[in-house]
């Protein structure tokens, strides 16, 4: 069965400190992996996906197939990074977006 685990419900860091939001997954095969973010009073939105290998708002995520992890990192946290972050996976692409399995989410709180 596919599963996404985010062990931390809440992560508090000081502004300027490094951030690492942990995510481990369970999937038979090679899934697509994503990070979604939900800022206060805003809708859920895609932050980044592993196939794009991009950095968005200073965040990066490296897929480690050996450890089945996809941790989200940022070297220097900003106050505007405070939000709920969801790690997610979907089956490998076969023509368009597939249904997504989400983790329980980690609330990131950046302290001024």
């Amino acid at each position, binding site marked *: 069965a596919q599963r996404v685990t985010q062990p931390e419900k809440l992560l508090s860091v000081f502004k300027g400190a490094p951030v690492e939001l942990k995510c481990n997954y369970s999937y038979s095969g090679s899934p697509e992996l994503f990070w979604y973010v939900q800022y206060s009073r805003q809708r859920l939105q895609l932050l980044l996906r592993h196939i794009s290998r991009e950095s968005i708002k200073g965040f990066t995520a490296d897929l480690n197939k050996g450890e089945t992890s996809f941790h989200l990192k940022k070297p220097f946290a900003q106050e505007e990074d405070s939000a709920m972050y969801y790690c997610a996976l979907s089956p490998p692409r076969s023509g368009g977006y597939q*249904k997504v399995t989400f*983790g329980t989410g980690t609330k990131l709180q950046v302290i001024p």
Partner: protein
Amino acid sequence: EAGVTQFPSHSVIEKGQTVTLRCDPISGHDNLYWYRRVMGKEIKFLLHFVKESKQDESGMPNNRFLAERTGGTYSTLKVQPAELEDSGVYFCASSPLGGPNTEAFFGQGTRLTVV
């Protein structure tokens, strides 16, 4: 361009009543998804429409839930009769049919409270 719109934003109903949630996807998006987050738990997939057809409804919890997408445009999710455990936030998402870089866009969610 308007995003995915969901109505209502909040609904409080009594156990046993019926509630209908609506989702208007982004114009031209053939894929439409419903998800639900029950308090303290993960966001869970409910079902997937491609145009007006149900592609995958494996996440629907039971037969008290009925989803429709008339004409392949907006979708409704009806809960009848509602139970306490149905409380949560219901999200809708839409995406175009297409290649590997398609992205799903989410609505703001409907918060359902069953009392």
